[in-house]
């Protein structure tokens, strides 16, 4: 009954960005582990945090609030939270609630490279 998991990748040596795959659901239950893990990731001071949401099947307000918190913390240090390839279902929630105007969302790996280049270049 594993319906939540994280894959935390190595920090990118070149640009100090870090990628994390979020799998399964991010709800009021799993967000506790998620926030703890993200605290550890942020302790490593990545320039940008890239959350790969392509395999995120569900997000609740608790998950969205966690993403808002990460966005604020990273922006304070001139970094950015980048949400990579959210599934259609999750994107629809962001859009309906107006979060597409707030989060930095990129829809492909190419777009991610562009976004990173423009921020770091």
């Amino acid at each position, binding site marked *: 009954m594993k*319906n939540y998991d994280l894959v935390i990748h190595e920090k990118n040596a070149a640009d100090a960005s870090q990628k994390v795959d979020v799998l399964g*659901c991010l*709800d*009021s*239950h799993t967000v*506790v582990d998620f926030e703890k893990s993200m605290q550890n990731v942020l302790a490593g001071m990545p320039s940008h945090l890239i959350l790969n949401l392509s395999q995120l099947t*569900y997000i*609740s*307000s*608790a998950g*969205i*609030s966690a993403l*808002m*918190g990460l966005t*604020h913390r990273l922006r304070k240090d001139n970094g950015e939270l980048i949400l990579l390839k959210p599934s259609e*279902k999750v994107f*629809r*929630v962001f859009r*309906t*609630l*107006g*979060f597409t105007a*707030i989060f930095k969302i990129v829809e492909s790996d190419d777009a991610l490279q562009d976004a990173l280049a423009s921020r770091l270049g």
Partner: protein
Amino acid sequence: MMSADETTGGGGADGGFEDETGFNEEVVDLDLSCRPHSRILSTIRTIVTGLADQHGFPDDIIGQIEMAVDEACANVIRHAYTGVNLPNHQLYRIHLRIVLCNQAMTIHVIDNGIGLHNKPKGASNVEEYLQRGAKGGLGLHIMDRFMDEVSYQYPEDGGTHVIMKKYLPTAATS
């Protein structure tokens, strides 16, 4: 063949839900109850999405019902029983009642907790939510935004009774 139902009357003693369904052949209703622990949320979502799908809702609306019910249940888990001292540990529960009829799906989420009487109004939009520092109000907003009707009742013996209704697309346009 089905002697049972004929003599069957009202809804549950179970928390004193009123029977709104009568003996309508087209109505299915079901009571659920569990302990208010967050690990139950994915189980509840599986049930609600399964029933919404069986009832003929399209995927995008199933997602909305799923989220609204999840928010209501998460609120019971996170808020309803905070600092509450009930005489009996079996009273710490989430109760759900799911009613499926021709035109709609209605979900009741009921607790015996502190009550939401003086609730901070749900953020009416995301700007408002952000002005508050992105804290609180998003759950109630989602319930309002994603369901066709949301109402709150406060049972005399305490707690909160949220009623959320979503109409089937075809029924809504007729």
